[in-house]
């Protein structure tokens, strides 16, 4: 198979073997951890800059504007300039705020989005920790994020922040159920919670093609609910600018605000990465049954390109939503989840189970 040349696990195994021959196991572990940590930090910085730039360009295209075009070629250094500006801003702590919680909340939000990176496979063999309960781990860790938001809103000593945080909390916990049920529908078909197993099960076709209509329904529910999970428009009740100024981060300034901003973008990336892994085949190339020549050409494209391509496509869709749909009211938001999405996804789970047991999929 041509896929083999892009297998990162052989490279990492060879590197591990080479290091082990030279030094003690503790040192090897430390070096490997440092490299992995550097990669995670690099990915964070890269994603922050790229997604902020992408958001501004996509919104410019949607509104027939030019968008950032002054700083650097095509405005590509705009995001860097924004970061430097935020770095030079004074970080205010309002009077009467709970100082510890106020300063800890941005750090907690970043830690949570850092932790979810662990089971995501960025390419063949390119994963930090491929644990065997990957999907459960993701849904468990991602729900800690809401605590950071509630913490920020409560500690700010501001009514807007408090209302924003409460809305955000209600919204995130509600939509978590639909996300969970749509993740479960893929788990039923795969029979495994491990992310690499889920990707490997899609070698002969992605679940969205193999799983017929029930999986397409759960994919649509996943996209809607994960847009709500990340507090993106049209579900950005938490920071509805026209009513709550900034929602839970009204009182935050400078770098602490930047951390919330960055965490929001990283979370968009993460939910899109999960969607791409579970429904769109992760790093698996696009294959059409029977067309051997076409499939071989597709195999030549390295797996990280496939993964990032699919993920950025989903990110584009979520950015598209923002400029297409008007913001919902808080009651409409909860009605949509509890009276439509949740019953539909419950019935859909049963359909997927029936399909999996009867073998009605490719």
């Amino acid at each position: 198979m041509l896929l083999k040349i892009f297998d990162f696990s052989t490279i990492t195994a060879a590197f591990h073997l080479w290091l082990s021959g030279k030094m003690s196991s503790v040192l090897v572990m430390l070096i490997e951890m440092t490299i992995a940590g550097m990669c995670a930090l690099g990915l964070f910085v890269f994603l922050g800059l790229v997604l902020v730039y992408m958001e501004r360009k996509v919104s410019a295209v949607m509104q027939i504007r030019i968008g950032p075009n002054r700083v650097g070629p095509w405005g590509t250094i705009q995001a860097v300039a924004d970061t430097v500006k935020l770095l030079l801003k004074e970080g205010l702590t309002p009077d009467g705020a709970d100082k510890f919680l106020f300063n800890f909340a941005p750090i907690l939000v970043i830690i949570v989005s850092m932790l979810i990176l662990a089971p995501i496979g960025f390419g063949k063999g390119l994963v930090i920790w491929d644990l065997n309960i990957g999907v459960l781990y993701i849904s468990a860790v991602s729900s800690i994020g809401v605590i950071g938001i509630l913490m920020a809103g409560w500690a700010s000593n501001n009514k807007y922040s408090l209302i924003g945080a409460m809305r955000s909390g209600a919204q995130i916990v509600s939509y978590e159920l639909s996300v969970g049920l749509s993740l479960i529908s893929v788990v039923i078909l795969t029979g495994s919670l491990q992310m690499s197993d889920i990707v490997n099960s899609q070698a002969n076709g992605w679940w969205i093609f193999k799983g017929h209509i029930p999986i397409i329904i759960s994919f649509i529910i996943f996209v809607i609910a994960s847009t709500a999970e990340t507090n993106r428009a049209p579900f950005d009740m938490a920071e509805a600018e026209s009513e709550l100024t900034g929602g839970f981060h009204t009182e935050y300034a400078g770098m602490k605000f930047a951390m919330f901003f960055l965490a929001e973008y990283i979370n968009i990336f993460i939910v899109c990465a999960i969607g791409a892994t579970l429904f769109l085949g992760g790093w698996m190339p696009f294959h059409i049954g029977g067309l051997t020549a076409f499939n071989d050409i597709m195999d030549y494209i390295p797996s990280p390109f496939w993964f990032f391509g699919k993920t950025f496509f989903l990110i584009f869709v979520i950015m598209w939503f923002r400029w297409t749909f008007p913001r919902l009211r808080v009651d409409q938001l909860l009605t949509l989840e509890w009276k439509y999405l949740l019953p539909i996804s419950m019935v859909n789970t049963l359909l997927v189970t029936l399909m999996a047991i009867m073998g009605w999929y490719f």
Partner: protein
Amino acid sequence: MGPGSLILLIICGVAFAGGGILLSQLIARSSTNSQKGQPYECGVPTEGNTWIQFNVGYYLFALIFLIFDVELVFMYPWAVAAKATGMFALIEIIIFMFILFLGLLYAWKKGALKWM
């Protein structure tokens, strides 16, 4: 890598967020002013206590969420075994889902899902 990677990622997160905030505190200019620390609220001083009682509706949704979230946790091990178990798993989950759905219907009829 093993479970150690989680500790590594936590360290990375603390280093990234804490480092950024510390760096900005070191290089950013700051000035103090008695007006500066006031909560932001449309330009006039805040009235009353900020940490107020809020709408009970949030609490109701949190309670219903709790029930369904526990259900979801129960469904993960079932989902892994469902395909291998066969028809028995489907019948079992239909009963399970039906009882939960009755719970949802009850909450719906009682008006717990209506935003006040």
